[in-house]
């Protein structure tokens, strides 16, 4: 089964996203910030990462840049997922190594469509 790591400091968002991603056939793990997510990736690299921007300890952009430098860190398809939805922020995420970008709030149709864009489903 394919794996997806959901990184968001909001438990509610993680719960909603988990539900949708599970329905798409993924096994899901969760992290509350970038530092925790990086630790989890070092133990086991997921196929997909759904990544929030603003988080305590280590934010999404810093996590993304750090992960892409790790061994095997280019493997996961990373879908950024943020309320910051102006072109400057979106471009920064894409330049930093994100494969797709979801503007919050999102629903199951959008998540499925974006996962399809990057070949996850």
């Amino acid at each position: 089964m394919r794996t997806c790591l959901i990184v968001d400091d909001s438990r509610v968002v993680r719960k909603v996203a988990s539900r949708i991603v599970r329905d798409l056939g993924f096994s899901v793990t969760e992290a509350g910030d970038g530092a925790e997510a990086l630790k989890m990736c070092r133990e086991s690299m997921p196929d997909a990462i759904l990544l929030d921007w603003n988080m305590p300890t280590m934010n999404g952009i810093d996590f993304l840049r750090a992960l892409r430098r790790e061994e095997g860190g280019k493997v996961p398809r990373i879908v950024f997922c943020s309320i910051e939805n102006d072109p400057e922020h979106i471009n920064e995420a894409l330049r930093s190594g994100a494969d797709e970008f979801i503007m919050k709030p999102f629903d199951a149709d959008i998540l499925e469509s974006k996962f399809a864009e990057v070949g996850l489903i």
Partner: protein
Amino acid sequence: MQETVFNVLADLALKATGQAIPPSRAYLMEARLAPLARREGFGTLADLVHCLESRQNPVFRNEVASALLTHDTWFFRERAVFDTVINAILPERLDATQSGRLRVWCAGGSTGQEAYSLAMLLEDEPGASLRSAKIEILSTDYCKYSTEKARLGVYNHYEAQRGLSIFRLMKHFNRMDSGDWQANETIRSRVSFRQHNLMETASGLGKFDLIFCRHVLSGMSKAARMRVAEVLVAQMAPGAVILLGEGETFQGLTDLLEPARDIRQGWVAAGTANRAAA
């Protein structure tokens, strides 16, 4: 819902747009008309129907019949079809016609996502032969509001993310202060929009080399589907292809069309499928 109210609305939908709405879907009717009824200040659907009957207002009739239609669509719906269009159908038509121009019709194109999807593909990945061709895209819909929305090319946060990659969104759309996204000048200039009822002749629109008519026939009565088939056939240029949606067919509706060889969901003039492939 009162039976008399249902009957008036079902009759309007059937006459105006060929929609066959069974009594079991009265709940859907209520849900779809609620925003319109609220906006116009009707307490109940019975009041709305009373107004509909006492005031022969074509604009209001269009609004009510439009509200009863399915408008749902998204960018690159049934994506494989678009690959076939850009890599096979359009180059083949261009080669056959030798005119350097092609006309494409999105019949029942709702809020324009289908037409804009094609316009984006023509910008992003035209094959060598398509690059220099002049390809006109016309999208029509019965609904006045959908046609106006399509023409503006403005999509909300949800619509702009359905079927559209972030790269295409950034390339072909501009973010507005409202947070909505508007198709840019380049792709808007490739597409035009007109209000048209598929139950009525389309001779004024001219002939087309490719016609999209996807997920339009599904909710219609058989008589209405036969009528639409007749209207579409009349606008086919020689060798034209009609594309239906997944699960739709012209079988039993017309003898003038047959399934195209090698084009999934594609239909061509009867007796030409084998010739076109040869």
